[in-house]
């Protein structure tokens, strides 16, 4: 009996574990190992350089700058996404008619490809010529066309990137919040009303938000990690065949060009950057988790 249990265990878990090992843990370990070598155009380097790649990345302007930019980006996008998705969830949850419809409508963008959405944003909504959607609307009010993606002063590209990210991601967090909201027992609200609490801010502050704590923590953590791991929409909106501009450059985009850029693959520096980024994400997540759960 026990033996067959074990066999069943490995039968079910085995393929998954093998896949995980081969495609996740080995590459992670390998790239961590590469970070200690001068590994240019090879994944089996022989030139051990110790911590030199880490020293380079930590003195290297572009990588630190992108970490800085995306820390600032996280400070902005995490609360924004949190508040908006929570607000939407509260609204959708209160609707009595066609709730499923509205839930689906708001969730739908989460199922959309980042690449497709990026191209729609870049090429049709926010293109810089007069017949772009945003510029057409501005034109009705007599405003000159704005080069949304091209302009750096003011940095209009953030409008494109932030609206795109919110559109793509709100739906997912909205669903998490709705699930959380529906798990809050109705009798808590009824008891509060009997005790004289007014529906609205009071119940939100003393019942809904505390009951949503676990969901909120999950949403914040996922959000924070997603902010540091930003890649797709940035790469597709701001990247060109010639490369990526030095502003609004996510750490992963910089590392992508470092280790996989055309013609030269510098896996040593790329690996070191990846390890550093993972450490930053882990540290920030731990601090945030501590701060919220106290």
């Amino acid at each position: 009996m026990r033996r067959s249990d074990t066999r069943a265990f490995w039968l079910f878990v085995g393929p998954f574990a093998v896949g995980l090992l081969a495609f996740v843990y080995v590459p992670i370990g390998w790239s961590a190992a590469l970070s200690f070598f001068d590994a240019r155009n090879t994944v089996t380097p022989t030139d051990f350089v110790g911590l030199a790649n880490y020293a380079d990345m930590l003195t290297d302007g572009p990588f630190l700058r992108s970490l800085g930019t995306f820390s600032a980006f996280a400070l902005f996008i995490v609360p924004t996404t949190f508040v908006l998705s929570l607000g939407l969830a509260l609204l959708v949850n209160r609707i009595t008619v066609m709730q499923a419809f509205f839930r689906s409508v708001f969730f739908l963008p989460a199922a959309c490809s980042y690449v497709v959405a990026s191209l729609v944003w870049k090429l049709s909504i926010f293109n810089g010529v007069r017949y772009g959607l945003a510029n057409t609307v501005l034109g009705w009010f007599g405003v000159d066309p704005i080069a949304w993606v091209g302009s750096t002063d003011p940095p209009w590209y953030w409008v494109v990137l932030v609206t795109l990210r919110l559109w793509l991601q709100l739906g997912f967090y909205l669903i998490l919040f709705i699930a959380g909201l529906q798990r809050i027992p109705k009798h808590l609200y009824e008891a509060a009303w009997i005790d004289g609490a007014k529906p609205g801010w009071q119940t939100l502050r003393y019942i809904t938000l505390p009951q949503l704590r676990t969901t909120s923590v999950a949403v914040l953590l996922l959000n924070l990690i997603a902010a540091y791991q930003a890649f797709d929409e940035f790469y597709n909106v701001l990247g060109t065949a010639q490369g990526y501009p030095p502003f609004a450059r996510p750490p992963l985009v910089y590392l992508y060009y470092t280790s996989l850029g055309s013609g030269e693959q510098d896996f040593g520096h790329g690996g070191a950057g990846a390890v550093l980024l993972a450490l930053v994400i882990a540290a920030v997540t731990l601090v945030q988790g501590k701060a919220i759960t106290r």
Partner: protein
Amino acid sequence: MNSGDISRRTVLSATGAAALAGLLGACGSNTGRGGGSGQALKQWYHAYGEPGVQQAVERYAGSYDKATVSVQWNPGDYDSKLAAALLAAGGEPDVFESVTQISAVRSGQIVPLDDVIASAKDDFTKTILAGHTVDGQVYGVPQAVDMQMLFYRKSMFDAAGVKPPSTVDELVDAARRLTKGDVKGIFAGNDGGVAVLGGPALWSVGLDYVTAGHDVGFDEPSAAVAIGKLRELYASGAMLQGAVKDWAEPDAFTQGLVAMQWTGLWTVPAVQKALGDDFGVLPWPKLDDNGRASVPVGAYGAMVNAKSKHVDEAKAFIKWLWVDRTDYQEDFNLSYGFHIPPRESLAAKAGKLTTGVAADAVRFVRDNAKSSNPPDWAPSMSSALDDAVSRVVREGADADTELRAAAQKARDELKRLYG
């Protein structure tokens, strides 16, 4: 063949598609092996945009009788896929097309082809061949020349009473005077030309990426002046930004959104179709008397994978196709898109390159060509310079400081490469 780049770039975004292409490619790779006469060679191309190229290269490979050559056509992100293949131990592909990079030479990924090209070496355009030469050895046999140049709309120039510019200052002035209503003076990409005009700007004051002695070529005060002109142009309000298509496609120019556009030779057929002969072409002008007018040129070269199990056969195949079979080279360059054969004897003979803008382009390649991507100008150096140029041009940073920092970075790299 940069029209290939266009489709490559578009598809590049779709990483999923690229992965799928990889899978399909992997399936396909089984079919080429086995039967046939002699050794089996595997040859890779990126997906050229022009119809007919794939059939043509398959036809060339099919008519080779010393080995069975199977062609793999690679839609999607060719560079990454090729890089991954060259890292693997399998030795596939045996033959492929790429640009020569010093890093690939230093890490022993490609083999010298001097003996392959020897019989026709003098016939290849010098600048093009230099783009495939590292430490005096040739690593790629040039297949087709691509170049960038400035297109201008004759009727708009006439209407505004502006002459085609022969200096950078005249160009900035022309761009200003041609900006009227919905028409902007010039378009050079949605990044304000940062990615493509850095080189021409350096060349306009007689500087370069890297000197012949492997030192940084732009650590001079005049570099800041040259890049400063790009900033002036960018900030003048005469530059179109945020067009739907980028600089590599002629749409902004053919739709009349601009009077000038920096784009490539490959757009000539489309521009001719849209505008007839109401356009002319120019090199990027000089800024001062130290500099010269320039056009960036480059060419994919046929190369041999050093890990191939059939290096000699692969070299023999390249010699047959890209050195001996001039008829195929002519067909490849002139029958599908619009390119200049890298061999001067073929370029001189080609009827459709003797008149109009095509003849101008051939003349620019002869007189004004600068390598757009010299082998010792490694990606880490070019990204340092691109970042600096971008900050100066698009964000108004101090040109001197930024360029000096980029020069320092490039110098460190060059020191690592050449000691």
